[in-house]
């Protein structure tokens, strides 16, 4: 149990946490602005990875073009998603959106299974498996790049929410929907942008992580549950809270998994989540009053 080993674990945890954060932030945004749980969020991430797979393996795009293209495609898919399925759902009918996105998730996952088969696919970028040694800690280049994209995603989202008027409108709707309507904020416009950004983030994380892991139709499942928990624990409506919770979760998993066992890491993470929620019912950084 050397210091170098613990440092490696911490570094791994931060990286994993950043990946959780990328997904959780998008989910939190959609959750906060539309008050719906997107049960298909993991599947959009998977679609992003599939997009990366197709562009790099079949069309031989380079890494940077792929990331940009898949993020933009994610935004378009988000726009379509809102236009076709979510219009008019925001703010009411929590259950309807739950089943709608659940059904959509099923269609996407099993559709991908049908089209691409369950056999895992490997995405090879021009970076191959080259890695970088920072002190005692080794990182593969694609993993570092994915970390960088998570940071870019967070900064971009922060800039959107705190430096633009429409971002301010989104925060307003997330904090108090009725009051935002009273001051004349158009909910549909705000909702549409929230979904576009949220799904674009899914696309980004899918494309960024496709070369790090392998691409399968069920790759979204494990991330999905953790993302829901992170969003609520981080605090309803708090994107920053979601990001911090995500990183904390990644670090806990890595430290416990690396020192005791992976199974216990999951158990500890779950119990920590329950304890946090019991002690702070509105989440760690919860804003506003929710009954």
């Amino acid at each position, binding site marked *: *149990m*050397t210091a170098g*080993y613990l440092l*490696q*674990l911490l570094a*791994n*945890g931060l*990286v*994993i946490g950043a*990946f959780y954060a990328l997904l959780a932030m998008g989910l939190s945004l959609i959750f906060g602005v539309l008050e719906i749980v997107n049960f298909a969020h993991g599947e959009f991430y998977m679609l992003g990875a599939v997009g990366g797979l197709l562009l790099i393996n079949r069309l031989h795009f380079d890494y940077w073009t792929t990331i940009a293209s898949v993020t933009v495609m994610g935004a378009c898919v988000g726009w379509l998603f809102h236009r076709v399925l979510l219009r008019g759902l925001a703010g009411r009918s929590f259950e309807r959106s739950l089943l709608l996105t659940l059904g959509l998730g099923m269609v996407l996952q*099993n559709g991908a*299974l049908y089209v691409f*088969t*369950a*056999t*895992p696919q*490997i995405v*090879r970028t021009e970076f*191959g*498996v080259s*890695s970088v040694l920072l002190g005692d800690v*080794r990182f*593969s280049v*694609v*993993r570092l790049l994915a970390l960088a994209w998570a940071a870019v995603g967070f900064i971009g989202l922060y800039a959107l929410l705190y430096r633009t008027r429409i971002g301010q409108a989104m925060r307003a709707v997330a904090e108090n929907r009725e009051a935002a309507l009273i001051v004349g904020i158009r909910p549909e416009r705000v909702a549409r942008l929230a979904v576009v950004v949220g799904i674009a983030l899914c696309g980004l994380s899918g494309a960024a*992580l496709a070369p*790090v*892991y*392998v691409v*399968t*139709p*069920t*790759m979204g*499942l*494990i*991330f999905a549950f953790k993302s829901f928990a992170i969003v609520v624990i981080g605090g309803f409506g708090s994107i920053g809270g979601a990001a911090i919770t995500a990183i904390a979760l990644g670090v806990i*998993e*890595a430290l416990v*998994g*690396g*020192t005791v*066992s*992976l*199974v216990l*890491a*999951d158990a500890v993470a779950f119990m920590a989540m329950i304890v946090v929620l019991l002690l702070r019912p509105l989440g760690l950084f919860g804003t506003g009053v929710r009954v």
Partner: protein
Amino acid sequence: MRVVLSCLATILLAGAATAAEPIKIGASEPMTGTAAVFGEQAKWGADLALSEINGAGGVLGRKLEVVVEDNQCNPAEAAKVATKLLDQDKVVTLLGALCSSATLATMPLIARAQIPFVVSISTAASIAQQSGVGGNTWTFKTNPADDTMAQAMVDYLKKEGVKSLAYMAEDTDYGRGGVPGFADAAAKAGMKSLAPEFFPQGTPDFSVLLSKIEAEKPDRIVGFFLRGDNDNIMRQVEAMQLKIPFTGRIDLHSVSLAVSPGFLEKGGMDHTSAINPYQPDWDDPKNLAFVEKFKKATGHAPLQMGFYEYEAVYILVDAIKRAGTTEPKALQAALKATKYPSMLGATIEFDDHNLAHNNALIQAIEGGKIKFVGMSKT
């Protein structure tokens, strides 16, 4: 006169109709969820066997048909699927169910329906324990038991001078069932075994687990994982430049595909070894021909499930031919008396517990290539 002729005509037509009726075999496999990659392989294997057999004229003058249903690797679904195949489709035999608990849930159902059940992929020891004499006489298992394969692997590792082992296994009946047997064999051979690490199937990130094992510096890492996790793990192994070779029950073919070609050639995966019921990289001419056919039909190489389900169909057809009928009791007796020459070199014969003892392949990666080390009797 007209009455007689029309009666004759009806009888002849009916006879022709039943003669043309296909022989239906049922297959209960996980076609969705995290085990889908294996169910898919099993279906591909069965389909390939089917097209070959039907192309050669079918069985007893009738075409063969396989009805595949999704059991989602879940006993409750497996029960529904089995009853559907038995009642609605009236299959003459059932294949499957791949996941051990699904197989165990199906066994009482086929026994009550008195229809034979050919298991070719499930690994739980209790399946064979509960079959055959004094138990379920309708279930037949064609794939070898885990503990005999473990012993053969440990013997090989002993010759390689391996002294300490770490374990990395998927948290399913495959991993949980296989690791204790391997650890026992290792202990008897005087090797030190570290506490095993189990991970949920479909875990995306192995950096923590691999770092942990790296820190403990074992001679080898015994892996109990299959395609899917296999590919993901090997990718991350290469990325972190883990120098400890893997062994045990991993899929060498997928290992060779998952790492980058340059890495493999330069010997990055050398000293990796594994024992498996089947691997596509075995350079026997019959196998090479089989792999070619499989690749042409599906675009992927056959894995253990693909080959074993393929051969299971052939074993079944052999039994039907010997019985001369698809009547269940005759089929059961014919299956029991099976002496089928497997492509792996051994003869498929069912022992007291309806378990066959086929050969298993031991392979290793040396000089960047998968080399065939030997066959092991199980």
